């Protein structure tokens, strides 16, 4: 098949990929992550296809898979060692807009005197969201980045074209496999603590709550904002204190290690 023919077929097949790309966009999967996932599926599928074509049960060599897929044999070995998925290297890079969120939470220019991210004007007053994007994600259109962050529920649009950041990390909201998995993990952690406390009341894990306070429903956004700010600050401090304690020389010498964390949840019974 000529080069033009191959390109033509690939273009025709694109229409089948488009809905998948749309789904990836909804799930917050970036192009490098999708490419890594596609490469992984490609390599796994090629191995199965080669084995089937040869009519043997023996797996084809990494070199053969490499020849068919065009992926270097070292990568083929690495990819085949795990089930198909996004490579850790790609996943760690995260969504490009994540760089904007990180800078909004750490660049002193965009923090208030308490060290927390300040509300920004869209572009009128420096420092603005516009300057933040230009500095930390050069080449990207601030309008597009804002639309993306707003769609993901990470930036709140206030009156007078002012913006408030709501989270430090890029994560799409709504029902998605990742979010459902996270919900399951949180529920499991809470149930594990509660059942542990039932079984071993002499060595309980911390589990406490405040008394519920009745408020006017109109004040709910204010209370939610207060809870989010106070608890966020407290959890950050706890995380840093735990990290310092866990990293101390004495504790590194200890043998068996366990994972310890803390979760705070707002309740509205």
């Amino acid at each position: 098949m000529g080069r033009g023919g191959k390109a033509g077929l690939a273009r025709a097949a694109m229409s089948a990929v488009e809905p998948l790309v749309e789904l990836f966009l909804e799930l917050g999967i970036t192009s490098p992550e999708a490419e890594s996932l596609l490469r992984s599926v490609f390599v796994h599928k090629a191995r199965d296809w080669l084995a089937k074509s040869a009519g043997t049960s023996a797996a084809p060599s990494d070199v053969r898979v490499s020849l068919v897929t065009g992926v270097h044999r070292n990568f083929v070995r690495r990819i085949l060692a795990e089930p198909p998925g996004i490579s850790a290297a790609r996943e760690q890079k995260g969504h490009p807009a994540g760089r904007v969120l990180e800078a909004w939470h750490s660049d002193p220019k965009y923090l208030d005197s308490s060290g927390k991210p300040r509300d920004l004007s869209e572009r009128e007053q420096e420092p603005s969201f516009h300057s933040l994007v230009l500095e930390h994600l050069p080449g990207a259109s601030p309008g597009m980045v804002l639309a993306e962050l707003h769609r993901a529920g990470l930036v709140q649009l206030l009156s007078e074209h002012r913006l408030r950041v709501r989270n430090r990390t890029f994560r799409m909201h709504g029902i998605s496999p990742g979010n459902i998995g996270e919900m399951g993990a949180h529920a499991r952690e809470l149930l594990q603590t509660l059942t542990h406390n039932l079984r071993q009341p002499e060595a309980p894990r911390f589990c406490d709550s405040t008394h519920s306070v009745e408020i006017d429903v109109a004040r709910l956004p204010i209370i939610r904002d207060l809870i989010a700010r106070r608890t966020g600050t407290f959890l950050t401090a706890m995380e840093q204190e735990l990290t310092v304690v866990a990293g101390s020389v004495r504790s590194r010498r200890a043998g068996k290690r366990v994972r310890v964390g803390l979760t705070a949840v707002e309740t509205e019974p």
Partner: protein
Amino acid sequence: MTRKAITRRARAALTAKSDDKAVLEALAGELLSVCLATLKTYGLSAGKLVELAAAASSGATGRKSVFSAVLAEAECLANLLNKWVENPSYRDTTGRPAVLPLAKGKGCSFSALAQEFFPTWSVSDVVGFGAKTRVIERIGRDKVAMINSTVLFTGNASLILAHLIRSVRRLFSTGDFNRRARSALLEGWPDRTSIVAVSDEDFTEFVKFIRPQISDWTEMSNRWLFQRSQSPKSKTRKKRQAGLQVFVFRD
């Protein structure tokens, strides 16, 4: 008196019923030298300081507080911000200080705040002062937003010195109360210190780590006090300024 003798007598004073006058005198001397050494860093000569100390000792410096006068404008701005933060009618639907129109209208406005706390100033002067101290910013031509709820004195020697005097007075007042308290446990006012030797890098990290915590504690304290001071019961009672002051230090 030698250092060794002071240590011995200070230890004895821990169990004695009355304080050792010689130890108190040595401590008073040290306090004065700490103050004088600090004031020298502000460019005051030793001779001038002796002159000022003599005037202060004889009570010739007058009763009017100089630091209050120096801090008066910053204090007014702090009170303006406090109302903007704490009064529910000045908050937006998310509970944060609302963007305010400059001109007086039907609802809340920056003009109303400016007039209440800076009665002799023009609104534009108050906006200018707020922008200079980086607590407010203009939104378009006719609105302002709060960007910081704390008036910082960083970079201004006379404001910092006035602030120091106020802080020292507060610290003395707490110390004075605590030296009279019978039990150190719950009768005294809280006065806590955390101190460990750390590197420059760790100290920088520490400041970054502790800043939001300190801000939250002071905000919580402020909210509690403000709401209590506004309650109908409290309005008729005699009041005195009270609060919490936290700062990071390095010896």
